[in-house]
């Protein structure tokens, strides 16, 4: 599926939630279900710095596609991560770089991605995009924070 198709799918899923609390409960469920990051990537150097919530980031490049392994100590953040991985992981670097993540607005969660929020989500999206750009420039390189 393309990035756009996946976003449309998520928007459709969120349309069923009438009570805003249901949205959060769904995110919590996604957060609980997200597989934890491989322990070997859960290192100090893979932590996204300057965030209130510890978030570990690792990306790899295989067969022309970027794959992400991301984890966080907060369940709610893991829920957001699950959505971002669903949309961007396994996509081509060029598509990730140019992706307009409009689904965040459409599902009514934009405020969580503000740069002034103490969570890691704004930085995380930037990190995912810059990993894609780095893969394009240096396809052999793999790794966490670059």
């Amino acid at each position: 599926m393309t990035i756009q198709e996946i976003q449309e799918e998520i928007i459709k899923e969120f349309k069923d939630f009438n009570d805003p609390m249901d949205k959060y409960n769904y995110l919590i469920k996604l957060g609980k279900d997200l597989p934890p990051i491989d322990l070997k990537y859960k290192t100090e150097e893979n932590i996204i710095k300057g965030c209130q919530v510890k978030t570990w980031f690792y990306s790899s490049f295989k067969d022309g596609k970027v794959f992400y392994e991301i984890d966080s100590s907060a369940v709610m953040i893991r829920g957001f991560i699950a959505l971002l991985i669903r949309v961007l992981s396994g996509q081509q670097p060029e598509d990730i770089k140019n992706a307009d993540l409009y689904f965040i607005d459409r599902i009514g969660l934009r405020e969580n991605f503000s740069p002034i929020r103490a969570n890691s989500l704004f930085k995380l999206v930037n990190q995912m995009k810059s990993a894609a750009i780095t893969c394009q420039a240096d396809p052999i390189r793999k790794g966490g924070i670059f």
Partner: protein
Amino acid sequence: MRERKNTHKIFSFDITKIRNDFPVLNQKIYGKPFVYFDNAATTQKPRIVIDTMSKLYSEYNSNVHRGVHYLSEQMTEMYESARKKIQDFLNAKNSYEIIFTRGVTDSINAVAFSFGELLVKENDEIIISEMEHHSNIVPWQMLCQRKGAKLRIIPFNDKGELLLDEYKKLINSRTKLVAIVHTSNSLGTVNPVKEIVAIAHKYNVPVLIDGAQAIQHQKVDVQALDCDFYAFSGHKIYGPTGIGVLYGKEAWLQKMPPYQGGGDMIEQVTFEHTTYDELPFKFEAGTPNYIGAIGLGCALDYLTNIGLDNIKNYEKKLLDYGTAKLMSLDGLKLYGRAENKTCIFSFLLGNIHPYDTGMLLDRMGIAVRTGHFCTQPLWDHYKVEGAVRASLTFYNTLEEIDYLYEALKKVQKTFG
């Protein structure tokens, strides 16, 4: 959610009336009655402060000092009268010992630079404590880096009380200053500052007190404390943002050089040499935040009318009730169990991340803060990264504590 009625009659003032004085409290957040438990970060403003400042901007605005025209003179008079109010509020000996700053951070930086330039040399020592806010750590670290001086740290016990015996061991002939928090913003501990000052003075060491979390909850008398410097922020005492106070004993302020140069702080300027104005203007370079200062004076009037003793008594009820209620919740760990503490509850709910707790409480209309609250070394003591903090004040109610309790049970159910 049920409407919460403020039915408890345990105080000598009318809580419903008080809450009506604070317009921001009378709203709904996500459709739920707003519970504001983030008062250690900033307090809400009573209508009288908001209206006064609005009136000043609408009808009186003019720059203070040097003006020959009517409005400038009016504004100067109100500005200097605010200084006098703060003098009275702190029981300072002289009004020129009250310096207007941007807040506690600005006040501490001013002393760190100005006092530091005057007196701190290589191998000298500054004493702070393990429970300081970053604003009472970093300016001293910067000073130490500039001068080759050293920071010494007073530890605290697990209840969150400073170890005064350790403090006594730290102080010596190299100590140049003790900078200590009056009330911890993370633990609520009210430190025995009078005793801390007396110990330092035996060694002729001056003491700066960070009063950011103390002055809104209890009477502070700088002459009785005998402290050399006392700092507080306007926005944490129901006044506007961007205004704060540095009280300094005249003897120190006279000796210390200005930390900022510019207009309003000079006596005479030539390209060869500048002479500085007298106190307090020597430390107030540039156009001061005169409307903020008057707004702060207005907030202090408001508090004085209610009575700091009334406030203290009421907040003690909130503290006792809140402590018992929160401690009755299975799995809740409360940080900060000092004998003498203010109404701050920092806690963790089992293994639930503070951010998760805070996010869900927010959706239920409860505003708390999560994280390290700018006291990272304090949380290193407990070997956790931070907590959830509910900080209450005199416009909060027992019913709101009940609501928090129920909300926390929901958080446990959701994440458990």
